[in-house]
């Protein structure tokens, strides 16, 4: 698949990162809470969170000694990442359809 502007897919291309994204979509979490629900270390969770933050999908804030992570509420990056995925899938499906039948069935019928 040859797509440009696919940074969103990169951000969520990793299954563990996607799992973290989905957990954050439900409610804010700390690193420890995320690590409890996933088969990876706290340090691995932190690394994924850093990627999500750098990509604009997640934000964090300090609450006492804890740091709480949640999805970026501004929505702009989320929309873009989401539509990026829609088009990636749609274009792949389109290419399959275009190449599937050598003759357009509609034309053949008429």
């Amino acid at each position, binding site marked *: *698949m040859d797509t440009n*502007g696919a940074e969103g897919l990169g951000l*969520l291309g990793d299954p563990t990162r996607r799992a973290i994204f989905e957990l954050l979509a439900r409610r804010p979490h700390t690193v420890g809470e995320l690590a409890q629900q996933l088969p990876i270390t706290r340090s691995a969770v932190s690394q994924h969170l850093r990627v999500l933050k750098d990509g604009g999908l997640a934000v964090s804030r300090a609450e006492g000694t804890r740091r709480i992570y949640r999805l970026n509420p501004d929505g702009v990056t*989320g929309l873009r990442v989401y539509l990026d995925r829609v*088009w*990636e899938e749609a*274009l792949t499906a389109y*290419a399959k359809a275009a190449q599937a039948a050598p003759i*357009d069935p509609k034309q053949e019928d008429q």
Partner: protein
Amino acid sequence: MSSTPTIPPLSGTITVDVPVERAFRVFTDAFGSWWPAEYHIGQADMATAILEPRAGGRWYEQGTDGSECDWGRVLAWEPPHRLVVTWQINGQWQYDPDPEHASEIEVRFTADGPDQTTIQLEHRRLERLVDGQALRDGITGGGGWPSLLELFAKAATNQA
């Protein structure tokens, strides 16, 4: 009026081993045959989606119960090389009829040879969708993006 900074457009490119006329026809006439059915907005399951072949035409889905939901309008119809449509589906996965909130999709079909075509797609003016979203959130007290993200998470999970 616009309060949201410009969002960089999305772009995608794909090459198919068919003549440009066929590439355009499959994209448009046969739109409903390839569009991933999970990306739809109607209450009923999507039976098909239709792109009317003319400038000013509708772009809409038909549900299995016969209901119809608009997605956008055809702005430019230039077979077999260019197509521009609006995408008026907002973050709540609903049609926004306000043309001020319409994002645009331009698709260009370039013949690389007699049997090969490159399709370049650009989805732009995304900030218009967000402006519409912000407006609606201001009225209803929010709740737009979480539903989109839930949908996204579901799609991402199904893909795994």
